[in-house]
């Protein structure tokens, strides 16, 4: 089962969660903070475990990949709190301290 959750934090800014459950257990997740540029939602930060490891990917405002770091999984509610607090400044922050 796939559960998608989108939270519109402010106009043009969303926190998004994609959780794939197999036999009621969370197998894969993608949590992302996206901003609307023109008509396209560009990802700024993205947490996922699709490659089998919990990590975070950071992109620039045009959606170009910048870097990837290990990052333990957090609940989506925590991710929403983090991105709602720091908004677009989040890409300049040291995520390991959050």
């Amino acid at each position: 089962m796939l559960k998608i959750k989108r939270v519109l934090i402010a106009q043009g800014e969303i926190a998004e969660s994609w959780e794939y459950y197999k036999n009621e257990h969370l197998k894969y997740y993608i949590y992302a903070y996206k901003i609307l540029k023109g008509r396209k939602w560009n990802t700024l930060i993205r947490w996922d475990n699709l490659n089998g490891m919990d990590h975070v990917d950071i992109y620039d405002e045009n959606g170009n990949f910048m870097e990837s770091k290990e990052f333990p999984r957090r609940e989506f509610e925590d991710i929403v709190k983090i991105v709602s607090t720091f908004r677009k400044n989040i890409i300049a922050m040291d995520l390991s301290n959050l």
Partner: protein
Amino acid sequence: MKVIIKREFKKEHITVLKKSIRRKYGRFEKVKALLASKGCASPGIGEAYLIYLCTMNEEPIEEEVIIKDKKVFNVFSAKRFEMIDYINNHGPLSLKELARKTGRDYKNVYDDICAMERFLILNVVKSGKEKVPIGKINSIEIRI
């Protein structure tokens, strides 16, 4: 204050979604290979992979939208609620079909859909050159 929208994806919606993904990223094997080679560099591939996994196993897809921006109330209107109702009852339709079937001007339909899409009220995918709102809204709730 927040507005909560719950949406489910029926078979016909998933078909449109899958078609749109196939056009953009290719078949499942290609998506899997892309994910392994440059998953991080192209964020949409992960979502495509999860949709493929779901459709192959015929698993349900549910969506919940939480809107915390009060400006969303400027987007709602009687005409737009009528449109949501029409989309809910007549399945996935392209904007052209929607305009023709509701007897409305295409530009007005386009503007309404874009305004609702911006606030996540509708989930719109690109199917070829056409935009298609997908998903059946089960509830729109206002919490104070």
